[in-house]
């Protein structure tokens, strides 16, 4: 005979109890491994979804800047020469809104892709027939968009887009009245996700809404012939293989292929005057371009002269004396001061330049001398202007000009100068090239034909002005120093630039053509196109990183299933121990025949190990089922939490191995724990089956040990609760919850003491009372068994009850500024940023809103934010945010304050004038290291971004630079969960090309939210304006947390069910062991029903004790919550939960008792 023989015989002989143990092991394994599979499945599903939507695209460039489509072709040529499988596809990709032309159905968050058939070789997962891009005024919709619009092929749709412009709408020359455009296109076809319909560069859970338009059609409509703003590149790699090297390679090739035209730059050679001028489509030259030009000029031995030409509404001679030298400012909405007594020249260009930086004179005075270097407050007029104004050197001259402020509002400023000299009307000064081309102005035949984006009073234009225009066009009439010009006219120099032209001249009379060539080469070399917004992003790599998720669903479900796993483990221990208890004589005989205690335990564990192995192996199969069930739950019952109908089961071998090993260890640990005391039991006691019920000495010892735990726990509970109730040193929630948990430990210890206590109470008298007392006295018959199950019930009850209180009830009252909604009833977002102030009557008029709508909003307060679209950060998102949405808070918003703050960065001072505590002012803090202060919702920071106050998040700004955002404050349960908030001043620094506001918080009386929503969406339809209530948004957010809590409670409840099953098993076992005693009672005349009630009383005592031991500490733990938010405590739910536990516990016992009590009387008596 061998050990294996013994183990094998035991396994087959006691198969029933082993099957029971095995079921427990299967449950534990299925739960644990299933939870891990949920994590794997979530990650894999997110990855599959993201990669499926990306198609074969590895790297993508999407810029605010439109560039030549031929550059993409050139890039393709270079890349395919190196790698055959590389595919390059140019495209236009912009945000927009789409409306059904007939029904008016509208979808505002639409990605509009202008492309051609090359795109379909990149997009989609490869299944299905590739679509064919139509020509002309046609559009392909993806299924999601078509469904929402109820559109079908042949229907007409209206597509609303932002109109691209090289000139920012926030500069004087930006056209704010022409920022949108609408295309009417016919739906050609509706395409499915697998052929590229759901193409998306950013991983997101919701199905994207895509409209695919023929590239040429879109280019024509956007007035960008031959230009695109995006390039998609596939390196031909398998999923996830494209690496950083290939990204660098693509970026390098692009850097080599980019032309000045791509960047909106041009070199103009003026051979007559001997210079090459760098000019920009955006009129102002970006700082990065200017720096590159200066470097290139330096390296080619040339000299760079920066010019800034601006429009003066008038040049005049001031009326009186005494004006201070230098600037005199006044705010004036009028185009030009029409005071007839003042001598003035209307609408002239003025150039700011530094005449000392070049060796050759740039300007000559009328006496033939070189123009002097100008100081602040000095001006030069050309002879024409000086004669017109009749001024001479030393006289005062005023300039009146427009400046733009927020929302494109124009303010008229006036500055006074001393005339330093008069410039001769020679070839140098009459150079029209001082003013770069500006369509609608420099290309007009007459001054009266000007069509600038600001108001003009053409009545002021005199004949002599027209004559000047005929002769000299936009040649400047005045000159100021470069420093002065920049100070007066370029307030956002880092954002838009501070030069309109850079002249490159050679000090050596070198051939101009040669200079131009050499300069251009160097210029392109120094132009870092990444800084100009032309950079590729590793979208596939980003998608893979994002797919790892914000939350490890594996660990989340392991924690959700914690009680289920613990219950199963305890059930395994309990069942195994019950099986071993039946065999204690066998253990005794093994010991008597010379087996050491460890050897006996080893034999039993070996037996258990086999069961554990088989159970774990079967459990792995069940785990897939459990994971599938959880995923189905996430797709249906718990959909509010995950918002992920795409989840699919993915069985990863690693998870199975981890699950197998972990489950096996848990099962073996439980089994080993259950038999640990057998080695200590005396052999005679084992042989006499006296181990189970009578080891009172051991119980007493362990009772002392429990006292060592229970009493300190009670003291700790008192200290924590007392401290948090009386001082601020311990936060209330921490103190009470920690105190409650300590109280739970104390309660379980007390339960143990009660269970092991000796009872001598006589069961006197008769009736139900006596029966109940008898039942109660029986309850602690096997203290360990009872404690195991009641302790589990107590723990599960504690958690389920405590968590119930954390369900969030949305407070829909949005009137309070210091509430989670900030006092805003509505929030809105537009696909096209609004260039005007929606909060002002003037702005609403400029936005062409009708009077009724404007009236409706008269009392409303609308706070606009700038918006950088990006990854959503709220708890609804499963993808790890890579480039989060960012909004820029205006000064008004910062000053207004509001919302509820969870915490602020302690070391920073907060504006607190004794009355108002306003953490919003932290956004204006300046960090020495240049970090940008940011406010974020507290749970987003903790769970989605996995960061903390004071820590940094690195993002890439529009220039491709890494920028550190530093968390300075957290909002508590705010409606602003999908975005990070920075100050507007920081926003425009990071994203200078984003003009206008596209995110809005609207404070409107709740009764008028419906009307306001309709009015805004109707009147601002061209901006694809979308309005929602903040209450609805909060409900969506709170649904996530509530659903997670419900999930936890559901799985905790299942653990509780297992606990009650364990209790029923204990009850059954107790009854079985006492079947002789019960048979005797029946022989004495007790009915089966009476004995049933007796046993049930015993069970009920344990269930109620467990419930009380869990519920009372839980109620204490959540008491601060109860006190602070009495209306939000779901009492009914808590009571129902506890009642459910009680009914389940007692009911399971009753069901289990039935068959046992029906066993025949005599065999039981005979056996006894």
């Amino acid at each position, binding site marked *: *005979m061998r050990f294996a023989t013994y183990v094998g015989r035991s396994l087959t002989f006691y198969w029933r109890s082993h099957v029971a143990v095995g079921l427990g092991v299967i449950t534990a394994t299925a739960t644990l491994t299933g939870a891990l599979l949920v994590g794997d499945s979530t990650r894999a599903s997110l990855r599959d979804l993201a990669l499926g939507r990306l198609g074969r695209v590895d790297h993508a460039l999407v810029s605010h800047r439109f560039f030549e489509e031929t550059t993409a072709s050139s890039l393709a040529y270079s890349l395919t020469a190196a790698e055959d499988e590389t595919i390059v596809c140019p495209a236009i990709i912009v945000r927009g809104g789409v409306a059904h032309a007939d029904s008016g159905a509208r979808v505002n968050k639409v990605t509009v892709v202008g492309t051609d058939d090359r795109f379909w070789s990149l997009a989609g997962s490869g299944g299905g027939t590739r679509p064919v891009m139509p020509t002309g005024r046609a559009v392909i919709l993806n299924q999601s968009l078509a469904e929402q619009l109820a559109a079908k092929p042949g229907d007409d749709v209206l597509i609303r887009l932002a109109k691209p412009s090289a000139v920012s709408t926030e500069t004087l020359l930006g056209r704010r009245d022409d920022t949108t455009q609408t295309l009417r296109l016919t739906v050609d076809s509706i395409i499915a996700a697998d052929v590229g319909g759901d193409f998306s560069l950013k991983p997101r859970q919701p199905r994207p809404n895509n409209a695919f338009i023929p590239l040429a059609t879109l280019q024509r409509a956007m007035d960008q012939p031959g230009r695109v703003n995006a390039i998609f590149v596939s390196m031909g790699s398998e999923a996830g293989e494209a690496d950083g090297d290939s990204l660098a390679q693509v970026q390098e090739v692009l850097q080599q292929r980019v032309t000045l035209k791509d960047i909106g730059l041009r070199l103009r050679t003026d051979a007559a005057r001997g210079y090459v001028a760098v000019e920009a489509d955006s009129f102002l030259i970006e700082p990065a371009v200017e720096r590159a030009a200066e470097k290139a000029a330096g390296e080619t031995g040339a000299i760079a002269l920066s010019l800034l030409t601006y429009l003066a509404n008038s040049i005049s001679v001031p009326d009186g004396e005494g004006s201070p030298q230098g600037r005199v400012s006044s705010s004036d909405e009028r185009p030009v001061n029409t005071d007839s007594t003042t001598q003035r020249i209307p609408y002239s260009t003025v150039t700011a330049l530094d005449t000392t930086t070049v060796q050759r004179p740039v300007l000559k005075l009328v006496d033939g001398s070189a123009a002097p270097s100008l100081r602040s407050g000095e001006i030069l007029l050309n002879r024409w202007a000086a004669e017109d104004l009749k001024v001479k050197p030393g006289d005062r001259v005023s300039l009146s000009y427009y400046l733009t402020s927020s929302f494109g509002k124009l303010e008229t400023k006036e500055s006074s100068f001393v005339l330093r000299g008069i410039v001769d009307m020679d070839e140098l000064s009459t150079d029209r090239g001082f003013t770069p081309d500006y369509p609608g102005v420099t290309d007009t035949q007459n001054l009266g034909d000007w069509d600038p984006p600001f108001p003009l009073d053409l009545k002021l234009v005199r004949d002599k002005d027209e004559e000047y225009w005929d002769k000299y066009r936009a040649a400047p009439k005045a000159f100021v120093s470069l420093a002065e010009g920049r100070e007066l006219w370029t307030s956002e120099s880092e954002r838009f630039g501070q030069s309109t032209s850079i002249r490159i001249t050679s000090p050596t009379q070198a051939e101009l053509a040669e200079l131009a060539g050499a300069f251009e080469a160097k210029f392109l070399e120094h132009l870092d196109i990444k800084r100009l917004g032309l950079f590729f992003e590793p979208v596939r790599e980003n998608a893979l990183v994002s797919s790892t998720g914000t939350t490890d669903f594996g660990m989340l479900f392991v924690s959700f299933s914690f009680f289920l796993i613990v219950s199963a483990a305890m059930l395994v221990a309990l069942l195994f121990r019950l099986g071993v208890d039946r065999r204690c004589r066998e253990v005794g005989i093994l010991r*008597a025949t010379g*087996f*050491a205690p*460890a050897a006996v335990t080893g034999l039993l564990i070996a037996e258990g190990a086999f069961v554990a192995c088989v159970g774990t192996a079967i459990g792995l199969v069940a785990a897939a089922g459990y994971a599938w069930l959880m995923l189905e739950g996430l797709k249906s019952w718990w959909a509010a939490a995950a918002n992920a109908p795409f989840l699919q089961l993915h069985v990863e071998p690693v998870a199975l191995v981890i699950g197998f090993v972990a489950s096996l260890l848990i099962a073996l640990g439980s089994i080993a724990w259950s038999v640990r005391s057998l080695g200590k039991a005396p052999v005679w006691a084992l*042989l006499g089956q006296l181990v189970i019920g009578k080891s009172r000495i051991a119980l007493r010892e362990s009772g002392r040990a429990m006292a060592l735990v229970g009493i300190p726990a009670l003291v700790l509970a008192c200290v924590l609760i007392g401290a948090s109730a009386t001082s601020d040193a311990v936060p209330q929630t921490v103190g009470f919850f920690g105190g409650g948990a300590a109280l739970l430990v104390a309660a379980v210890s007390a339960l143990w003491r009660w269970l092991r206590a000796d009872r001598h109470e006589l069961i006197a008298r008769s009736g139900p009372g006596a029966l109940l007392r008898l039942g109660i006295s029986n309850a602690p018959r096997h203290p360990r068994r009872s404690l195991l199950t009641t302790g589990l019930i107590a723990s599960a009850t504690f958690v389920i009850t405590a968590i119930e209180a954390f369900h969030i009830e949305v407070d829909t009252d949005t009137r309070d500024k210091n509430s989670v909604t900030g006092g805003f009833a509505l929030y809105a977002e537009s696909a096209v940023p609004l260039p005007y102030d929606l909060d002002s009557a003037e702005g609403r008029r400029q936005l062409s809103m009708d009077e009724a709508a404007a009236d409706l909003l008269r009392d409303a307060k609308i706070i606009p934010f700038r918006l950088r679209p990006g990854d959503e950060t709220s708890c609804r998102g499963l993808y790890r945010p890579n480039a989060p949405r960012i909004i820029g808070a205006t000064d008004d918003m910062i000053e207004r304050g509001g919302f509820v703050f969870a915490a602020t960065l302690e070391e920073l001072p907060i504006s607190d004038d004794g009355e108002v505590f306003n953490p919003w002012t932290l956004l204006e803090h300046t960090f020495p290291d240049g970090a940008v202060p940011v406010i974020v919702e507290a749970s987003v920071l903790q769970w989605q971004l996995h960061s903390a106050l004071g820590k940094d998040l690195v993002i890439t700004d529009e220039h491709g630079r890494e920028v550190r955002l530093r968390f300075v404050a957290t909002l508590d349960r705010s409606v602003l969960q999908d975005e990070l908030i920075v100050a507007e001043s920081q926003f425009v620094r990071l994203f200078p090309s984003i003009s206008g506001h596209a995110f809005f918080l609207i404070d409107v009386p709740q009764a008028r939210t419906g009307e306001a929503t309709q009015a805004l969406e109707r009147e601002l339809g061209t901006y694809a304006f979308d309005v929602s209530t903040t209450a609805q948004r909060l409900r969506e957010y709170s649904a996530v947390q509530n659903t997670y809590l419900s999930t936890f409670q559901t799985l905790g409840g299942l653990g509780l069910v297992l606990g009650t099953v364990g209790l029923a098993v204990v009850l059954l076992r107790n009854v079985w062991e006492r079947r002789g005693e019960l048979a005797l009672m029946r022989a004495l005349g007790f009915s089966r029903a009476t004995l049933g009630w007796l046993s049930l009383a015993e069970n009920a005592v344990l269930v109620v004790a467990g419930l009380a031991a869990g519920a009372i500490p839980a109620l204490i733990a959540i008491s601060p919550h109860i006190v602070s938010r009495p209306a939000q405590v779901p009492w009914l739910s808590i009571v129902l939960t506890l009642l459910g536990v009680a009914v389940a516990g007692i009911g399971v016992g009753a069901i289990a008792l039935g068959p046992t009590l029906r066993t025949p009387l005599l065999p039981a008596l005979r056996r006894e």
Partner: protein
Amino acid sequence: MPVSLCAESIKKHFPTRSGELAVLRDVSLTLDAGESAAIMGPSGSGKSTLLNILGTLDTPTAGTVTIDGKNPFELDERELARFRNQRIGFVFQDQHLLPQCCVLENVLLATLVTRGGNDATERARRLLDRVGLSDRLKHLPAELSGGERQRVAIARALINNPTLVLADEPTGNLDQTTADSIASLLSEVHRDENVTLLVVTHSRPLAERFERRFDVADGTLVELEGA
């Protein structure tokens, strides 16, 4: 003859709710190698407790036990188990056969400790033949009568050639005929296997089969004259 079993001044107290209960007060006993003896006494007198202590299944509150010149209670747990395995054989009133193992396997149970191999199996067969169960080797305990189960228990007690066999009420659960048969078997085994045999019994006829007889009363052991 060398002394096989020597117990001196054995005391055994049990804690109870009412205080310490003295079961054995001052018990001394010496058996030479190959001797057989019976301990008699009324229920609750402590005879089984004494047997458990002598068999190292329980520890005395005071006093010493020497088996083959060695005090087993000075051994550590593992050595004690080994000692018991090699030196002592037990026969219990309830036999305590493993229900999952057949007759042969039950007899071989003690050899698992020392990995007896084929020799052990051969010896088990011989012992089972000796107790008259050579045709029941593959039967399970549930398929045997009470007397047959006790024969298996006797064979099991002898499998490792112990020097001391302790039997606790070996005929307590058997009818008279079977009890006589078992008593005879024990006597034969004692004689043939040359073991020291100590039997606890209520049965005077059984006790009279052995060389010495003791009576336990009030926690003390008294050797009966006329054995």
